[in-house]
C-alpha cells in the first residue's frame, strides 16, 4: 500500500513533481517496473491535478473504459498509484530544482533539501491570464480563467458572478459552460476570434443546446467596469465594435505549460512550446530531469497525458537501468518554420530505436495556429527528408513518424531537422 513520504528513509529513486494524470501514471508505472522509491510531490492538499475540479463527464475512457466525472477519475488514479506503492508528499511546493536532482521543497514545517536519482517534471498547463492576452481596460474583479472558476465552484462551493461572457471555443470553454450550468450562472455570450469553433464536433453543439449566443470572428478588445466587470467591448470581422453587458469574463484556454520551475532553474525551455526542451524520451537539457504530459506542449486531454506519463515511466525505468543512449551523443535538433507553432521533441536520436521500452516517442508532434491546407515538409539543410500533403487545424495535433524521417543525408547525425508547412491556394 502507498504511504506518506518520509524524508528520513532510503534515498529517492524518482521524484515526480506534480500529481496530475501524467505524474500519477508515470509514478505508478515506475513502481510497477520495480523501482524502489517513487515520490510524488504535490503542492495542493490532494493529488489528482486539474480533473479534481472538473466536476463533469467524461474522464477515464482510456484508463478505466468507463466515463467518470473529473474528481472520481482523479481519485481513482490516486488510489491506483497508492496501491502500486507510490509515496505522496502533499501540500509540498518544490521551490528549486538543481543539478544532480537536488530539490528544495517547502511544507508548513519549513523548507528542506533532498535529492533523487531522476526527477520527472509533470507540472501541466494553465490557461493564459488576462494580462498576457493584453486585453485593454481597467483592472476589475470578475475576470477569471476556467481553472480558477472551476476550483471555486467545485472545491469551495462558491461563484464569482452570474452572467459571464465566455471567451474562446477550445474544449475547456465547453467545460466552462457545464460549470456555469452547475453553479447557476447564465453565460450571456460565447466569443470566438476564428471562423470556426476550435473544439471538435459534437462539443460545438453545446452553446446551441444551452441557448448561449455564439459570436464568431469576434475579438474581445476591452473590459470595462468599476470595482467589477460591467461590460465588454468586442470587435467583429468587419471591424465593427459593440458592447455586451455582463458581470464577469471567463477567459478559456490558450494553455501554456507551467514550466517556471525549469525556467527559473537550469533547464532549457523551448520558446515555441514554452515547455522544457526534450529528446524523444522526454529528457531535458539536464538528463537527470524528464518532462511528461501537458508540460511538454499545450494541450491534450487528461487521458492522453495519462498515456504519456505511462510511457515516460517506462523510459525513466530504462534510464535507471542504463538502457537509454548517452545524452551527450549526437542528436538532431528539431525546429519549425512559421505557420507551425511548435515541434516536440526538440532533439531526436536515430539509434537504439528497437526495444519497446527504450523506443521513445514514435512521432514528432506539431501544431498550427490557424486552419491550413498544404504540404508539410521536413528537411535537413537543402535536403527534403519527408513530405506529405495535409489539412491541419489548430485543435488537432499533427504527428510525423520519427521512423519515416530519412536522416541519412546528414553525414554527422546531428543536422537540424526543420519542419515547414506551405499553404496551397
Amino acid at each position, binding site marked *: 500500500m502507498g504511504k506518506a513520504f518520509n524524508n528520513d528513509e532510503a534515498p529517492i529513486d524518482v521524484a515526480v513533481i506534480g500529481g496530475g494524470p501524467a505524474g500519477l501514471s508515470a509514478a505508478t508505472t515506475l513502481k510497477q517496473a520495480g523501482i524502489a522509491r517513487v515520490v510524488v510531490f504535490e503542492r495542493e492538499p490532494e493529488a489528482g491535478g486539474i480533473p479534481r475540479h472538473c466536476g463533469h463527464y467524461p474522464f477515464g475512457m482510456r484508463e478505466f473504459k468507463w466515463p467518470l466525472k473529473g474528481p472520481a477519475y482523479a481519485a481513482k488514479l490516486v488510489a491506483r498509484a497508492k496501491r502500486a506503492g507510490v509515496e505522496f508528499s502533499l501540500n509540498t511546493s518544490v521551490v528549486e530544482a538543481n543539478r544532480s536532482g537536488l530539490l528544495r521543497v517547502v511544507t*508548513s514545517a519549513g523548507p528542506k533539501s533532498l535529492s533523487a536519482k531522476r526527477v520527472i517534471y509533470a507540472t501541466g498547463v494553465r490557461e493564459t491570464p488576462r*494580462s*498576457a492576452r*493584453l486585453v485593454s481596460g481597467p*483592472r476589475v474583479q470578475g475576470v477569471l480563467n476556467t481553472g*480558477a472558476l472551476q476550483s471555486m465552484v467545485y472545491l469551495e*462551493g462558491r*461563484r464569482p458572478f452570474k452572467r459571464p461572457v465566455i471567451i474562446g471555443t477550445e474544449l475547456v470553454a465547453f467545460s466552462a459552460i457545464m460549470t456555469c450550468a452547475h453553479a447557476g450562472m447564465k453565460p450571456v455570450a460565447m466569443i470566438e476570434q476564428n471562423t470556426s469553433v476550435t473544439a471538435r464536433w459534437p462539443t460545438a453543439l453545446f452553446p446551441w443546446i444551452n441557448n448561449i449566443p455564439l459570436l464568431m470572428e469576434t475579438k474581445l478588445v476591452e473590459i470595462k467596469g468599476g470595482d467589477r466587470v460591467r461590460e465588454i467591448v468586442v470587435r467583429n470581422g468587419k471591424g465593427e465594435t459593440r458592447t455586451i453587458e455582463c458581470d464577469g469574463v471567463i477567459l478559456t484556454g490558450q494553455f501554456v505549460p507551467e514550466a517556471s520551475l525549469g525556467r*527559473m532553474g537550469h533547464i532549457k525551455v523551448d520558446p515555441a512550446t514554452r515547455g522544457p526542451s526534450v529528446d524523444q524520451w522526454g529528457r531535458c537539457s539536464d538528463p537527470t530531469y524528464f518532462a511528461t504530459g501537458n508540460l511538454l506542449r499545450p494541450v491534450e486531454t487528461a487521458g492522453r497525458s495519462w498515456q504519456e506519463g505511462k510511457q515516460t515511466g517506462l523510459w525513466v525505468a530504462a534510464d535507471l537501468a542504463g538502457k537509454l543512449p548517452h545524452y551527450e551523443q549526437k542528436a538532431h535538433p528539431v525546429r519549425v518554420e512559421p505557420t507551425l507553432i511548435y515541434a516536440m521533441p526538440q532533439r531526436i536520436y536515430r539509434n537504439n530505436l528497437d526495444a519497446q521500452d527504450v523506443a521513445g516517442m514514435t512521432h514528432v508532434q506539431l501544431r498550427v495556429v490557424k486552419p491550413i491546407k498544404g504540404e508539410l515538409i521536413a528537411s535537413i539543410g537543402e535536403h527534403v527528408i519527408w513530405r506529405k500533403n495535409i489539412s491541419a487545424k489548430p485543435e488537432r495535433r499533427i504527428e510525423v513518424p520519427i521512423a519515416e524521417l530519412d536522416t541519412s543525408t546528414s553525414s554527422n547525425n546531428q543536422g537540424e531537422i526543420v519542419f515547414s508547412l506551405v499553404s496551397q491556394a
Partner: protein
Amino acid sequence: MNFQMEKSPSQGMLSNDVCDVLIIGAGVVGCAMARRFTLEGARVAILEKATDILDGASKANSAILHTGFDAPPGSIELACIREGYREYQEIYKGMGLVKEDCGAHVVAWSSNEVDNLEGIHAQAHENGVMDVRLISAKQLQNAEPNLSTKALAAIAVPRESIIDPWSAPYAYLAQAQKNGAEVFLSAGVSGGKFDSGIWTLSTTRGTIKAKHVINCAGLYGDLVEEAVLGEANFQITPRKGQFVVFDKAASKLVNSVILPVPTSRTIGIVVFRTVFGNLAVGPTAEDQQSRCDASVDEDAVKALIADGIAKIPDLKDMPITALYAGLRPASELKEYRILPQAKKNWISVGGIRSTGLSGALGIAQHVFKLYQKMGLKHKKLKNPMVPIANVLAEKAHRDWQRKDHGDIICHCEMVSEREIKRALEEPLPARSLAGLKRQTRVTMGRCQGFYCTARLAELTKDHFETPLSEKI
C-alpha cells in the same frame, strides 16, 4: 448608558477629540506625513477615502528610490528626494524593509542622446550626487551584458536603488498608528469649516475636528481644496503611466535600472527589476481627465514590449506576467506644490508628480519644518515603537521559509495562509483584493490567480467590500 465605542480604522464614527494635525489622504506622502508628525509628538489623525491605503497614485509606480541626480537643481523636489533617500537609508533595516542597491544607467541610444549625457552628468554633480560618472559603450556592456549592442554610451548612477513600494508606506503608517495616530478608512472629505482656530471637516463617516490640516490627497488634492477652502492652490492633471511586468526569469537579464535620456516632458521608458524578482518596462506618459481610470491599452502595452525588446533582445522569449497602470498627480508646474496657508492652519502638499516614493520621508520633514515656522511645538517622542514590516522581497527571508505558515496559497509569489490571515486583521486590515495584493502579493505572479483564486475567495469571504464570490 456609558460605554466607549472602540474606534475602528474601517467603520463607525470618527474621533470626537480635536487632533493637532489631520492628514487627508493615505498615499505614500500621507503615510510618511503621519509618521513624521506622530514621532514629533503631535496628535495625528489620517483620513483615506478608499477602503485601503495607497489606493490612488501610490498603488502603481516604478518602485525606485532615487538619489535625485536628475531632479531640477535648487528645487524643493531635489531637497526632499535627497533627504528622503537619506532617511530611508537610516530607518529601513530597523523597520524590516528592503533596499537593493542595484544602481542605474542612463543609456544613450542615439548621437543626440550621447550629446545630452554631458549635461545630465553636470546636473548630477550640481545636485550633489558626486559618484555619477560617464561610461563608454564597452563599460556599459560589461555592466549589462544582455543590453542591446546599439547602446552608445551611458551615465552610471551607482546608488539608485529599488525598494518595496507598498511595504514601505505601510510601515510608515503602522509606526504612526502604533505610536498613537488614528487611521480612518472609507472617509472621503466632502467639506469643512474653519472657526476659532479649529477645523471641522465633514466626511463620509461623519465630522472630525483638528487644529491643522495637511492636504496630501494626491490625485484629488485640488478637489479637496475646492470643497473645503472654496478654491484650490493648484490644479491636478492626472498623467497615466502604463507598465508591463515580465516573468521572474527575465530579471536575470539586467542588473541595474536602465533609464532613458529624459525629454523635457517626461523621464521616459525605464527597464527595471523589482524587489519581488520581476522585470518591468514602463511607464508611458498620457495626460487624461479621469482621476481614477487606470486602464491599460493594448497598443500602448505592445509598444512598451517592443521598447523593452529593443533594449534587451532576450526579452522576446519571456512571458508577460502582468500589466498595470498608475496615475501620477501632475500639476500645472513641474515643482512640488507645497504651499502653507498660516492664517488657515492649512498646508497643501500637491503635485507630487512622480517622485513621491523617493521624496515622501523628505517631504514630511520639509512640511514639519514649515509647521514649526508657524510657531507650533510638540514634545518629540522619546522611545517611539518601531513595528517590523512583513517582508515580501524575493531575496529576503519570507514567511514561507518559516515554520507553521499554513498552506502556501499563492504558489507563484509564495504567499502563505498565515500572511493572508494577518493582512485581513487589524490594525490595517485589507478590505479589497487590491489592498490584500499590496500587503501580501497574492495573485500578482505569473498565473494571475489561476491556481489560488478559489482558496482566496474562501479565505476572504467576510472581509472585502466587493467580495470575490458568493455561496452557490
